């Protein structure tokens, strides 16, 4: 039974991940005053890359990178329950708690670092260095906010946290939500924190050397990971979802917000974004933490 659940979760995440990416491209296109690609375009792109031949080889370590990333994304997805009520689509969430998910969130970038390092592309290595530098700063406000939520709800279980919100955490603890949202924008690779794959600086960053099937794997990975992260944010701050429509609505609204923010701002430099993340959102998160503990 659980196997069927997992397969279905994978399919849902895959479909909606790509759908969201397609919508992302379409919405930014409209913002940029143009027609934009069809909604299924991202999916077509990834399939096309699966159909390409691989002519380069940098040893098995190189190929391991995308695979570790993919498994990191899929594992993250499996440990996050899609709905907070009912029995289905819980995945493996009863076997692991929020701590495990937080660990899995960093597994992907680390795995990628291994592969890219072997590839020998200087821009790839630079992208990974940027990514890891930024990762540290991103985690800070996010961890503070998440740990605060955890201690306030008195549980590390995601389902419990999601169910126990009578009013959304985002409304009761707005500062924690804002702090976490800043790092979430970074996690989604949006401006102004999109230093990792900045094309005018480091080509496409870690993905510079990957082609064909491995690039396709990276694309699918990012689609699934995006969906998983959106669900996690909804579970933690927006009261989870009891049905399919609620889930889609909430994740999509969150996604739209991230896009809109990204379209309006230019890119920071790596030190600037680390500085910013360690100052503004971290302080917001800490203040939020203090206020929350004080008021409860």
């Amino acid at each position, binding site marked *: 039974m659980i196997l069927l659940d997992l397969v279905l979760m994978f399919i849902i995440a895959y479909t909606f991940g790509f759908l969201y990416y397609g919508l992302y491209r379409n919405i930014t296109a409209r913002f*940029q*005053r*143009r*027609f934009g690609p069809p909604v299924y375009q991202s999916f*077509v792109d990834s*399939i096309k890359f699966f159909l*390409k031949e691989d002519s380069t080889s940098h040893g098995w370590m190189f190929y391991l990178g995308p695979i570790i990333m993919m498994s990191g994304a899929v594992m993250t997805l499996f440990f996050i329950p899609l709905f907070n009520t009912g029995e289905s689509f819980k995945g493996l969430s009863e076997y692991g708690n929020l701590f495990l998910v937080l660990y899995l969130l960093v597994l992907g970038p680390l795995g990628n670092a291994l592969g890219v390092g072997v590839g020998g592309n200087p821009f790839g290595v630079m992208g990974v260095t940027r990514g890891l530098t930024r990762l540290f700063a991103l985690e800070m406000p996010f961890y503070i906010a998440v740990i605060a939520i955890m201690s306030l709800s008195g549980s590390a279980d995601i389902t419990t946290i999601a169910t126990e919100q009578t009013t959304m955490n985002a409304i009761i603890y707005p500062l924690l939500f804002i702090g976490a949202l800043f790092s979430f924008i970074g996690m989604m690779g949006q401006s102004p924190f999109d230093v990792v794959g900045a094309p005018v600086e480091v*080509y496409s960053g870690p993905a510079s*050397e990957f082609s064909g099937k491995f*690039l396709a794997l990276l694309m699918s990975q990012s689609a699934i990971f995006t969906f998983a992260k959106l669900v996690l944010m909804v579970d933690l701050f927006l009261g989870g979802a009891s049905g399919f429509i609620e889930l889609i609505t909430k994740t999509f609204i969150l996604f739209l917000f991230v896009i809109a923010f990204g379209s309006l701002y230019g890119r920071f430099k790596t030190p600037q974004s680390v500085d910013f993340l360690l100052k503004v959102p971290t302080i917001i998160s800490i203040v939020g933490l203090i206020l929350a503990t004080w008021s409860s």
Partner: protein
Amino acid sequence: METGFLQEQRTLEGDLNSKTSHKNSVDYLMNWFRSRSIFVLAYGTGCGAIEMPPTFTSRYDAERLGIRGAATPRQADVIIVSGYCSYKTLRRIIRTYEQMSNPKYLLALGSCTINGGMYWDSYNTIKKLEDYLPVDMYVSGCMPRPESILEGFIALQKDISNGKASSWQKYEDNYEFYRKNQEAVLGKTVEPSYEADWYLYDGGL
């Protein structure tokens, strides 16, 4: 009946869908996916590059046909040789072309790639691109308008979905021929002289 912009979009898409011949449905599907997703390498090799920004941005918006830019040769499907090639650029184009993964296509813009164009008596530009690299589609003009670049793309996409665009195969099969021509103008050092061996310093990473 749709009018204005949407009508143009439908016409272009209809153009893409028309007349496909294929051996079997797997082949058909593969070619369909390949033709609907075109990643273009961001390398402006000559003056035709000035009409590429309009093609890819708001007004002409090539992305609606699945054509978008890619930053690195590893991820690109199409390299655009936009205009005349000086020897120095030709070296880089050859290097870049060989870095791309199959199947890859080459779109040549402007009359300079076809027969030398304005610079037919210039000592530093080649006159006929197809001697040095296999060309899938030529777009003539000096420089071609964004509309004609889009038309060229659609013709290329049609070729891809019919399985006709196979220049990379041609390049592999006739490598000796191309190499000979390249060496004839560029000398024995066809590839540019720099090597990315920085990571080998002090025993590597």
